[in-house]
């Protein structure tokens, strides 16, 4: 039961959130939570009391995995979760203030806030997906962040950490946890994990290049500091999720609606996390597989009459999971560099855009000029159009003109979506455009 101060603080926050919604400023999660936290700095801890929590963090896949975790936990009872990516303490406060008595919480947490949130909530489970370069103007260095995780989990006696054994940064960070379940969650991007986080040695990967979701190969520090891939207890094998123990192995069919190997890995991480919170792994695997869309990712929207499939990719590791999902032909790529994106888009040079050679790319977003220069050096044909709406309609037109002869009939053409890959705030802006332009469909 939360104290009077917290109840008043969260009621004040809810009031401000409702006001924010009514004036159309957003869903009010962040501003409402800020008000609550200003009135009661202990609001997160007191609101969390009585709600067993599963936290999800990592550079990529947080929102999706949290949604999948919520779906798995819902098989056991009511669940509260922070939708819309509000993953800083104010967003968490708002989510928890809405929780009914005894509801479990599935919460996405920003990487940098894991220590603070975990300390406040003493979660039942903490799911650590991956760590790679993203928003370096704020995060600065990946190893510093891994080090902060490592200190935090060492003190978490009542938490089971569900950790990706394929990512050396995560494996090192989770290595101090009193209770940990290692999962072979794959690694899409190796270049932030070459320098050993434990010493100044170098990590060697066997079979480097294994993508996200593929059970990654072994890795170890060549300087002999002892850091090596922990033996995963849970992994993917073909269509199955496999749990190994001393008594042998159990297999569970895992059929995931979301596209891509990385989403199979997210589904596995979510199911294993739910299994630490009282849901059977079989039940969890069924529930995560059934989730069809998460926060507009891969959803089709209509922007100024043009159908567009929205794909989120906000850093090099994210892009590595996207190339194989793209439909052939022209596409639009939207890049912003606001605070939530990271102010420095230099990471565009770590993305192998050379793989788009032969297509036409419409470069858009507030930093379309950075992208245009990158594409020029990559030898990729491109057009620069800063306005998101105009860029999508242009890309759609280009796609239709290439589909032209022998393709679908003229009546079908306008419904064939063009792929639009966007980073965080440009993705949100495109969703807003889509809502204005006739609504999202699944």
């Amino acid at each position, binding site marked *: 039961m939360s104290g009077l101060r917290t109840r008043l603080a969260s009621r004040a926050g809810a009031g401000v959130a409702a006001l924010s919604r009514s004036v159309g400023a957003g869903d009010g999660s962040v501003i409402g939570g800020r008000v609550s936290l200003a009135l009661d700095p202990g609001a997160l801890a007191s609101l969390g009391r009585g709600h067993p929590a599963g936290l999800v963090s990592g550079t990529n896949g947080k929102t999706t995995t949290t949604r999948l975790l919520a779906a798995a936990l819902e098989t056991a009872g009511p669940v509260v979760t922070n939708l819309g990516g509000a993953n800083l303490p104010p967003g968490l406060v708002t989510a928890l203030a809405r929780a009914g008595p005894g509801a479990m919480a599935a919460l996405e947490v920003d990487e940098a806030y894991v220590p603070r949130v975990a300390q406040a909530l003493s979660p039942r489970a903490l799911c650590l997906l991956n760590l790679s370069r993203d928003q370096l103007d704020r995060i600065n260095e990946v190893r510093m962040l891994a080090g902060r995780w490592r200190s935090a989990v060492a003190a978490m006696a009542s938490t089971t950490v569900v950790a990706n054994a394929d990512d050396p940064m995560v494996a090192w960070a989770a290595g101090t946890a009193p209770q940990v379940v290692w999962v072979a969650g794959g690694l899409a991007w190796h270049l932030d994990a070459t320098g050993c986080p434990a010493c100044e040695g170098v990590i060697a990967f066997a079979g480097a290049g294994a993508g996200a979701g593929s059970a990654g190969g072994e890795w170890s520090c060549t300087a002999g500091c002892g850091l090596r891939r922990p033996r995963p207890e849970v992994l993917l094998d073909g269509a199955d999720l496999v749990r190994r123990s001393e008594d042998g192995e159990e297999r569970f069919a895992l059929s995931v609606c979301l596209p891509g190997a990385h989403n199979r890995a997210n589904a596995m991480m979510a199911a294993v996390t739910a299994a630490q919170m009282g849901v059977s792994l079989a039940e969890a695997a069924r529930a995560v597989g059934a989730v069809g869309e998460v926060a507009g990712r891969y959803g089709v929207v209509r922007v100024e009459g043009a159908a567009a499939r929205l794909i989120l990719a906000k850093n090099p590791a994210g892009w590595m999971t996207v190339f194989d999902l793209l439909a052939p032909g022209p596409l639009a790529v939207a890049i912003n560099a606001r605070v939530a994106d990271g102010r420095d888009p230099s990471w565009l040079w770590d993305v192998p855009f050379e793989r788009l050679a032969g297509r036409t790319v419409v470069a858009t977003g507030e930093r379309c000029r950075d992208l245009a220069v990158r594409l020029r*050096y990559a030898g990729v044909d491109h057009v620069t159009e800063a306005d998101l709406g105009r860029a999508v309609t242009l890309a759609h037109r280009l796609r239709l003109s290439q589909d032209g002869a022998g393709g679908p009939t003229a009546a079908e053409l306008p419904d064939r979506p063009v792929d639009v890959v966007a980073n965080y705030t440009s993705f949100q802006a495109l969703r807003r455009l889509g809502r204005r332009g006739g609504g999202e469909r699944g």
Partner: protein
Amino acid sequence: MTAESAVRVVVVHPDLLGTYGDGGNGMILARRLAWRGIDVELVQSPSGSPVPEAADFYCLGGGEDGPEARSAVELAGGALNRAVEAGAAVLAVCAGFQLVGHSFAGADGSPRPGLGLIDVTTAKGDGPRAVGELVAEPVASALAGLPTLTGYENHGAVTALGPGVEPMARVRSGVGNGAGDGTEGAVSGRVFATYLHGPVLARNPALADALLGSVLGPLAPLDDSEADELRRERLAATARLRRWHRRRRP
């Protein structure tokens, strides 16, 4: 033409010194040569194997403290020093800048020996980390006539220049070397060192050509209209930010 006659561009330890997109610099040098019809070979030289010594250009990028120290240990054999003595040019950015100097700070803050290619010394700074757009006017004699340099800095260390180097540029906006003298980067012979990311050569094609020209002599101009647009946009954005900060000052 055989590979022996091709110009060689080596990206040094992209797996350790590539955190901030600086791998783009090697790519940019290579493409700018190829666009001019010059035969070029771009070599990625990862950690754990010797850096090729017979090359014309070496690029070192930014990296985290631990990997930077590792890179310095691997380069201590002198391959890069010998290549520079033989006439190669170097572009060293951020951690790369620090490790071509006399010494720099390791992850634990203790001083580590650098390659001593240029007369600079780096230590951990006391102030907040320098993060943001950086604008600087080139002052090094090798960069005479170059337009304003623009890029993005992200570093916690402070680099002091010795008498054996020229500053690359004078800071107009941002922090740069951070030692209180208002300088950014350093130039010594054919070694060009800077804190600018972006990558620096994407935002400053004239610097790319100055670097290439230091070894190959004058080069034909290229169409840099897209980079020019990016430069105009970034310089205008930084100027807006400066005005905003000035207005907020009491």
